[in-house]
Each structure stands twice: as structure tokens, then as C-alpha cells.
């Protein structure tokens, strides 16, 4: 039984702080004729890919999701969250490459069916890449007056074997943004780390990173930063309060939805983008 559309794994953040991303992505993908259909059930991916060679325990969570897809007759899973993409993809690759690990995993899973290793993980960008023509067609009014700083962070690009583009010089996000008609700054900080989970107990580290990343975008004249990772979004958006800057941070699907003339909610933004969007004539 295959779903009509892309078999979609949300991850916990999409149901909480990242819900603006999910809602806008759902609308955009529907509009592009590539609807996302949420998996019937799913588990937290684990959020951090364990780097220990012998730590199989922390591979169970992502593998359960792959197993669920397998049992539903699906061989592809699509994610929106960069973090989930990275964790699921690395787990899926590991099970393909290391037979011993797969065997250990299946022995532990015990009463559950064996994972056969055949589920592929994709990110939203993989689908958008094939839909550039449709994206362009759907743009109601090109966002010509808007200067955007594209930002990738780490999870889409590192490690190399799960990267969705060139790890040092990616251009996939820029290629989508150009279709919306925006002006792009050459963002040399776009592949730098936002501080990630230091946000939990070392916000001083995150604040330094944010200062550096947002400061660069500001000096280059960007009106907003656009990205796809909910954790990067939280750090760059929320922790900007510790800096002198106030640049809105949007998910790429939010900007795309606005360019398509779709109505979206923007609830989880510490820096409210409304006045900027109104000023640029993008949102009334």
C-alpha cells in the first residue's frame, strides 16, 4: 500500500516550535502537486546522530521509523527538518554499509520484523530540485524588492556522505530562491554552525555564533535570513535578542508560500517579520 504523495516523516519539532515550517511546506507542496502525507505513526529520530562506532542503542530510534516505512510498503521517506534528515539518513546509510550493525539491530528488535535496509531518506530540497519549473510557474508576484541571505548550517551538508549539495560551496537553496525573484547576498557564513544544542545550556556560545552569522548578513544588506533547519531557526531568531540586530528569519517554504500568494500563519517568530513583509508589499 503506497500513499498518494510523499511519505512524510515530521519529527517532534514540526509539531511544536517548527510548526510554521510544516504548515507552509504542506501548502507549498500541495500547490506544486507533490503533497506530503504524514506517516501513520513515527518516533523521535533521536535528534543527534551518535558518533560512537559501537553505540547501536542510539540507532534504534531512527531505524524504527525506517522499519515502519518498510512495513507500510514505502521505500522512500521525506523529511522537512534538517536534523531529522541528517539522523535518519546517517542511520539508513549505516545499515546499508555495515551488515554487522544491521544484524545486531535486527537481533535486538527481536519480536519486530527485520529491517531489510532498503528505505531511502530524502529532504524537501531533493523534491524541490525536480520541481523548479513548477516553482517558477506558481510565483504570483516576483519578490524583487527583497534582499535575502540564504543559510544552510550543518545538517544538510555534513558529513559529506549525506550532504545534499557541495559541502563547501552549496547552491541548491540559492537556486530555489532565485526562482522567487529575490535578490541574494553572497553569504559566506552560510555553512557555519549556529551553535546547535549549546542553546540548551550554553547560550553564550550560541549568541557569539548568531552575532557572527546575523552580523554578516546585516552588513551585506540582507532584509531577512532564509533557511530550512528548525534548530538554526530557533537560534538565529530567538538568540538575536542578545545582539544589536533584528533581522527576521524565515523558513524557505514560508517565503515560497508568500510568493505563491498562499495564506500562511507565522506563529513562532521571535522577530516578527510582518512589518518587513508589509513594507515590501509581500503581505498585507
Amino acid at each position, binding site marked *: 500500500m503506497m500513499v498518494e504523495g510523499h511519505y512524510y516523516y515530521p519529527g*517532534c519539532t514540526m*509539531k*511544536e*516550535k517548527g510548526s510554521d515550517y510544516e504548515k507552509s511546506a504542506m501548502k507549498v507542496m500541495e500547490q506544486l502537486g507533490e503533497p506530503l502525507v504524514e506517516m501513520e*505513526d*513515527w*518516533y*523521535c529520530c*533521536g535528534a543527534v546522530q551518535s558518533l560512537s562506532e559501537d553505540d547501536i*542503542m*542510539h540507532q*534504534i*530510534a531512527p531505524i*524504527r521509523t525506517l522499519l515502519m516505512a518498510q512495513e507500510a510498503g514505502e521505500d522512500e521517506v521525506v523529511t522537512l527538518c534538517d536534523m531529522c534528515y541528517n539522523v535518519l539518513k546517517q542511520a539508513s546509510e549505516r545499515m546499508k554499509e555495515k551488515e554487522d550493525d544491521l544484524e545486531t539491530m535486527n537481533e*535486538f528488535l527481536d*519480536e*519486530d520484523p527485520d529491517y531489510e535496509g532498503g528505505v531511502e531518506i530524502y529532504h524537501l530540497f531533493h523534491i524541490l530540485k525536480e520541481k523548479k519549473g513548477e516553482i517558477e510557474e506558481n510565483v504570483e508576484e516576483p519578490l524583487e524588492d527583497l534582499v535575502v541571505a540564504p543559510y544552510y548550517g550543518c545538517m544538510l551538508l555534513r558529513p559529506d556522505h549525506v550532504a545534499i549539495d557541495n559541502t563547501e560551496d552549496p547552491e541548491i537553496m540559492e537556486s530555489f530562491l532565485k526562482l522567487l525573484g529575490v535578490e541574494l547576498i553572497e553569504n559566506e557564513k552560510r555553512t557555519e554552525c549556529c551553535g546547535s544544542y549549546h542553546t540548551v545550556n550554553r547560550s553564550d556560545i550560541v549568541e557569539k555564533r548568531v552575532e557572527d552569522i546575523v552580523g554578516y548578513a546585516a552588513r551585506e544588506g540582507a532584509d531577512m535570513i532564509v533557511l530550512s533547519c528548525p534548530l538554526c531557526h530557533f537560534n538565529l531568531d530567538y538568540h538575536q535578542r542578545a545582539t544589536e540586530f533584528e533581522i527576521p528569519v524565515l523558513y524557505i517554504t514560508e517565503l515560497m508560500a508568500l510568493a505563491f500568494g498562499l495564506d500562511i500563519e507565522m506563529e513562532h517568530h521571535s522577530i516578527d517579520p510582518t512589518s518587513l513583509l508589509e513594507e515590501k508589499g509581500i503581505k498585507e
Partner: protein
Amino acid sequence: MDKEETDEEETEEEMVEIFVMGSRYRVPEGLTILTALEYAGYKFTRGCGCRGGFCGACATVYRTEDEYKLKMDLACQTAVEDGMFLVQLPFMPAVREDYDIEEVDPEEHENILLDYYTEVARCVSCNTCTKACPQDIEVMDYVQSALRGDIERTAELSFDCIHCGLCSMRCPADIKHYHMAQMARRIYAKYEQPDSEELALRVEELEEGKYDEKMEELVKMEKEKLKKMYDERDIKEEG
């Protein structure tokens, strides 16, 4: 063979051998673990509870011969088997967070369950909790629901929980499943679940004394008649 001998032989066949904290006992087949322990001479002052599978006080861990897995059940609901290795668990303490259900405000939290029970974020999806549950609850699934802030699903999936605590005892992440789920059910009931109009109407009827006469009748009824009435009561199917 006369009748008495047959009876004796049958009785002999019906005995099973169990081990209680290392000592061997022969007990009649068909007893529950709880009654078998009593048969063997143990007296419960705690850890026996309702004996009806509702209170969760008699959670027990056991092993059977030639089986590498530990098994978990309620001692009052599980029949003894030959070669069972038994132990009775004492009451097991688990941290329960303090909160006043009248005071907590789920709207003020991104994820209130996670804020009170942070260990939930340590779940690695091993599913050991689900395997331990004598109530066949999808324990891991409700922990995962809590992790993503879905209070309703956590409340619904955990509804049959009787707080025996086996899930938390087995959890490698030290999650306090049952306390967390109880909080979910309380929050759901108080802040999210729609109010029942029917309940309000029934309370009104009661207050108006609509059932006073019938109640009086029941109170005065002879025990045998009451029993008969109870056994013959009409139970309507749901829906």
C-alpha cells in the same frame, strides 16, 4: 483402582514445582502467582492489593526454565507454571513531580510534559517498556507522543495504566512513564477534553431527587434479591 486412589493421583498430577527466592515448592496447578506464594507460606502485608488486576500493587518479575528472557506480570493475574522462578517486588519508588493541577497552565509551556518529566527526551525507542507492560499498553508510543507534545494521544494510549511501575523499572533511560502519563490524563481531562453535557444533566437530575425513591428501594432490598437483580441487569452495548 478405586475412586479415592484416582483422586489422589489426579491431585498429584496437578502440582507444579516453583522456586521462590531460591527455595523449591510444590504448589497446585492453576493457582495465581499470588495465591501460590501464599500456599507456600508467605504472608503478604504489602504488594498484594486488590487481587483483581486493577490496582497494580502486585507487579512481579519471573523467569521460566530454559528461557533467557525475564518476564513481567501482575502476580494476581498470572497462573503458576512448572519451573517458574519467582520473586516478589517491594514497592518501587519513582520520582513524581509536584504540580497543582489547578495551577498548571499547559498553554504556558511549549511542552508541559517534557518540562515536568525531562527524562522523556532520553527515550531511544528500545520498546522495553511496552514489552514489560502487563496491561498491553503501547507504552513507548505514548512516551513518544509526550515527546512531541501530544497530550491527548498520551492520555488515550495510557488510559489502561494501573501504575504497577514495571515500565519504569525496565527503562534504560529512567523515564517515569506512569507518573508522566497520569499528568497527561489529568491535564487532558481538565483543560482539553470537552465537558460532558450529559453528565451535567444527570447531576441535575440527581440533585432534583429523581432517583431518590429508587435508591431507597435498593438500599432496603434483601441481599439475595439484590444479587439476582445485579446478575440479570441489562447491559447495553456501547454506541
